[in-house]
Each structure stands twice: as C-alpha cells, then as structure tokens.
C-alpha cells in the first residue's frame, strides 16, 4: 500500500509545482503585456495628438491658399446662399468638439454649409480633407466678431481648422475617444487696398502728365471713372492733371460720369475700411520693406529698376523707375508703379485691369508725395476690367493677424 500513496503524493507535488510555475509565467507575461500596452497606448496618444495638430495646421495652409480665390460673403453663406445664424453652439467650428472625438469620417456629413470651403457654389471638402495617413482636417470660415456674421467689409475672417486623427489602439472601456482632435483658429486679412476701381488711380501731391495724339484711351467702363485721385502728401495733383488736358482729350478719358471721367476719392477712401490703410505711413513702410522678400514667392512680379516690359504679362506687376510698355504688349491685372521714374505707354500697348501711380516716401508717421509721371501716346490704352483686377488680387497672400489653439474648455 506504500507505493501508490508515495506515487500520489509525488504527483500532487508535481502538479502544485507546475501550477505555481504556470501562474508565475502567466503573471510575468500579463505584467509585461500590460506594461507594453500602456506604453504603446501612451505613445499612440502622443503620436495621434501631434498628427492631429499637423493636420489642423495643414488645414490653415489650405485656407490661406483658398481665401484669395473666393468671394468672402459667398463663403460665409455657403453654397445654399443663406446664412443659418449664430445660435448653434460652436457655430464657428467645423464640427463640435465632442462629435469630432467620436466621429466616423466615412459616415459624417455637415449639418450646415455656412463657411465651409467652397468655390463657385461647389463644396471643395464635403467630408473634410482625407489624408493618406488616415486622418482628416475640416475647415470652417466665419466673419470676425467686429462685423455682422454674414457680411464682410474689412477683409478680416476667422478660419478654424480641426485635425482629426484616429487612435489606432482603441479600447471598449474608452469608447468615446475614437479620435485625437486639435482645433486651430487663424485670423486672416485679405488685403483689399489695391482693389482698384478705375482705369488709372493717381496717389500723390503733384504730377507731370503728357498726352501725345488723340488716339490714346483711358477707359473706366460704365460703372467706374477713368481716373481717381487720392491726395497724398499734397493737394495739387488734380490741378496738374487738368492743366495738361486740352479739349480734344476729353473724350479719350471716359467712364462713369461726364467726360473727362475724373473723380477725387480722397475723402471716400479715407473713411472706407477697405482703403483706409493707403493713407497710413505704416502700411507703405511695411509693404515696401516686405515686397522684395515676397514678390517671387507669391507670384508678384517686381521690377525695382523699371525698364521695358518685354512681353505680355498678367497678375500683379510692381515697378519703380522708368517703365515702358510699347509695341503690342499687353498687361492684364494690377500694375502698381511706386515712383522713382514714370510710366510710358506707346504704340498699341495696353493695360487691362488698372494702373496705380504713386511716388511716396515715408518719414516717421508722415507720408510725403513726390511728383507722378505718365506719358500716353499713339494707340496706348488703359482699360478698367474688374475681372482682371480680381485675378490680380489673387496673388496677394493673406496677412495672418492671429493664430491660436482652441480647447474644449474655452468658449467656442
């Protein structure tokens, strides 16, 4: 009877040892797994957070590129043309924060189209911008709080970009956090100071104008004058212009109003928020300082020494010194001549859009106006064209006035 008892005892001990070993190994494996899982989840969280931030920033860049191409009022109302109001919570956000955290991008559709990226009444990102990495960004434009929500006058808009990055490791215990979400707001200004509203805009205090022949043409079309005057650094500009005209030239300067079609817009522009900056020294100082850095990158042609425009061009041309357009050359868009010489148009040279002439120097907070010089001869023409000016304005990058991260705890 001893043998079986001894065998059973040994077997029990072996089983206990096996169980203990198994428990030890299982505990070890479980501990390591939990540790690794926790670390992985933390890392995933950090990675998703950064990814969502990068996505949101890319959304701001998208908005920055889009803004010059669109009509802001149309953008604010959305493709349906009606503004839905500001009663909804988080109405400036592309979507509410809490929804974004649980969002399934495939099934989401926006509840209203106000401020969503659109062009010519077509939505550009109906379901956000899908990134190859699996995340998306969503955008919504809204007007700055200083103005009515549906109507823009000052060119300043807010854009909020929401980056949504899916968390790759999800847990049934954390069902509400499907995505990592970052919301960025940028305040952008689309500068409109050079939205010219005449064939020729003269800004200065005096001028020297030459008209050769009776075939040249300054044409403002039916709605706008041929020539607008802005008195800057002196008030003899309009008189200088009128003294050079003889009666035979009157019908060569045509547009809205009686011929010659001329309008002094100094007071109106000074009070208009879109043009007020033209009378500020800081505007001109900054613009002239930054122009060389930004001209090539933004598609603006800069000719600091002037010269002969060799071929047809379009967009925005900023020149100083003596600039000559001759032969059949045509420029379409906005031509800004900032002094240091004059502009000459001869033969059949033509500007379609608008021509701006100024010769300003800034001394502290004072703007001083030098004499302007313009010579038109033969069949040279300057013809106002709103579409060409609008196309030219698209080359001006928006000015970023502010940038901030938004959190759900803030008033959104």
């Amino acid at each position, binding site marked *: 009877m001893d043998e079986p008892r001894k065998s059973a005892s040994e077997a029990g001990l072996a089983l206990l040892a096996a169980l203990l070993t198994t428990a030890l190994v299982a505990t070890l494996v479980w501990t390591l797994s939990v540790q690794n899982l926790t670390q992985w989840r933390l*890392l995933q969280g*950090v*990675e998703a*957070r*950064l990814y969502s*931030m990068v996505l949101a*920033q890319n959304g*701001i860049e998208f908005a920055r590129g889009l803004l010059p191409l669109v009509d802001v009022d149309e953008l604010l109302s959305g493709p349906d043309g009606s503004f839905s109001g500001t009663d909804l919570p988080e109405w400036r956000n592309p979507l509410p924060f809490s929804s974004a955290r649980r969002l399934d991008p495939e099934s989401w559709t926006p509840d209203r189209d106000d401020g969503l990226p659109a062009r010519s009444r077509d939505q550009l990102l109906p379901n956000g911008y899908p990134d190859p990495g699996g995340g998306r960004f969503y955008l919504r434009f809204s007007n700055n*709080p200083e103005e009515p929500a549906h109507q823009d006058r*000052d060119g*300043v808009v807010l854009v909020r970009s929401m980056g949504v990055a899916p968390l790759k490791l999800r847990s049934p215990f954390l069902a509400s956090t499907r995505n990592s979400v970052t919301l960025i*707001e940028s305040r952008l*200004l689309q*500068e409109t*100071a050079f939205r010219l509203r005449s064939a020729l805009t003269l800004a200065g205090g005096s001028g020297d104008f030459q008209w050769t022949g009776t075939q040249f043409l300054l044409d403002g079309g039916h709605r706008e004058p041929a020539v607008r005057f802005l008195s800057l650094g002196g008030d003899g500009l309009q008189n200088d212009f009128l003294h050079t005209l003889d009666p035979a030239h009157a019908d060569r300067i045509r547009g809205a109003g009686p011929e010659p079609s001329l309008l002094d817009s100094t007071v109106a522009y000074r009070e208009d*928020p879109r043009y*007020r*900056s033209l009378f*500020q020294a*800081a*505007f001109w100082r*900054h*613009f002239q300082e*930054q*122009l060389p*850095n*930004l001209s090539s990158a*933004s598609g*603006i042609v800069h000719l600091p020494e002037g010269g002969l425009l060799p071929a047809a061009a379009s967009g925005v041309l900023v020149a100083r010194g003596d600039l000559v357009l001759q032969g059949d050359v045509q420029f379409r868009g906005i031509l800004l001549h900032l002094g240091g010489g004059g502009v000459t148009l001869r033969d059949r040279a033509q500007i379609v859009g608008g021509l701006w002439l100024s010769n300003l120097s800034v001394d502290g907070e004072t703007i001083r106006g030098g004499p302007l010089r313009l010579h038109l001869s033969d069949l040279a023409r300057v013809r106002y064209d709103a579409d060409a000016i609008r196309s030219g304005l698209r080359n*001006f*990058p928006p*000015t*970023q*006035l*502010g*940038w*901030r*991260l*938004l959190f759900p705890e*803030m*008033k959104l």
Partner: protein
Amino acid sequence: MSPIDSLAGSRGVEAKEGERGFSLVESLLATAASALLFSLFLGVFDQVQTTVTNLTRLMERDRNLILAPVLLGGWILGTGNREWDRDGDGILIQSGILQLESDLDGKDGFPDGRVEGNFEILSLRCRTDHLQLKSGAGSFHSVLKQIRQWEILMEGRLLNLRLTGAVSPNLMHWKGDGETVETIHYTLRNYRPNLFPPRDG
C-alpha cells in the same frame, strides 16, 4: 562475505545491480566539472546580461531621441505660435533656456477666448542629462531622460534644435560614451512675414 558486505547485510540493505553509489573520485570529478560548468555559465550569463543592459540603455536613448521631436513639436508648435498683431516672436533664448510665450495679448487678443492673462509660458532646458520643462512660474521637472545637451538656434522663422542623446549611466565594458545627435527643425508658421501689415484701427 566480506566485512563490509556483512555490515551492509546486517542493516538489511543490499545494493542491487546498477544502484551502486559513486566513489569519492567520481564525486570529486563531478563536483569539479559542475563548478567549471557553473563558472562558465556565470561568465556567459554576465556577458549576456551586459549585452542586454547595454542594448536596453541604447534603445532607451534612441527611444527618447525619437520621442523628443514629437513632444517638443507639441509644445513648440502649440504654444509659441500664438501671436496677435505684433512683430515680437514670442520666443526667448537665454542661457540655454528656450522660453515660449503664448497668447501675448491675453483677453484682448481673442475676446471670445475667456483668457484672462497670458495663457501659457513654457520654458525648456537641459540639465544633468535630462530635458526639463517649466510651466509659468513653476519649477523645472524632467520630461525626458538621456538628453545630455541641446543647442538652440533661430534662423528667421526656423527654430533649430540639436539634441545630443547619451547613455546614462555609461555603457558597461564599453569605451565609447554612447552619444548620438538628433537635429530637429521647426518652422514657426505664425511668424511668417506678411506682405501687408495688420490694419490699424
């Protein structure tokens, strides 16, 4: 029957065939062989342990260097970029400390933000092989280990950080110091030059 056999027999124990005990020599040989094997095993184990420890330290160093851009990106891009109608860059570099200021205008900057003062000032520095972070007027605490030193350089809108990751404590039985360098570039997007200034009034 020999005396030994008779002694064994007297205790009623008989050695069966194949159950004979080890002789003294055999036992000594076995002990010596075991000691040799054990010492060999200890040597190999020590080598393996050293290698594993070194690898772990190197992997930890590399993991910290991989994690550093992610963490720094979050802090730098998220806090230093909040600017409102001013030319200041919101970044201060002094004595190896990188200070990032946010929301410089407080509640006047974004009236709907419920921000009563400067939202956040973060300071980063490298001390005793640790990257340390300080929020506001608080004190520095370590956020990343094994960062021996960092160099900060601003080039226009580009913030360049050069991190030197090091193994700490040093690698075992290894002459090198285990240093490796990671260079990170952050474009401070908000501080871009603008063709037009913000409007006055």
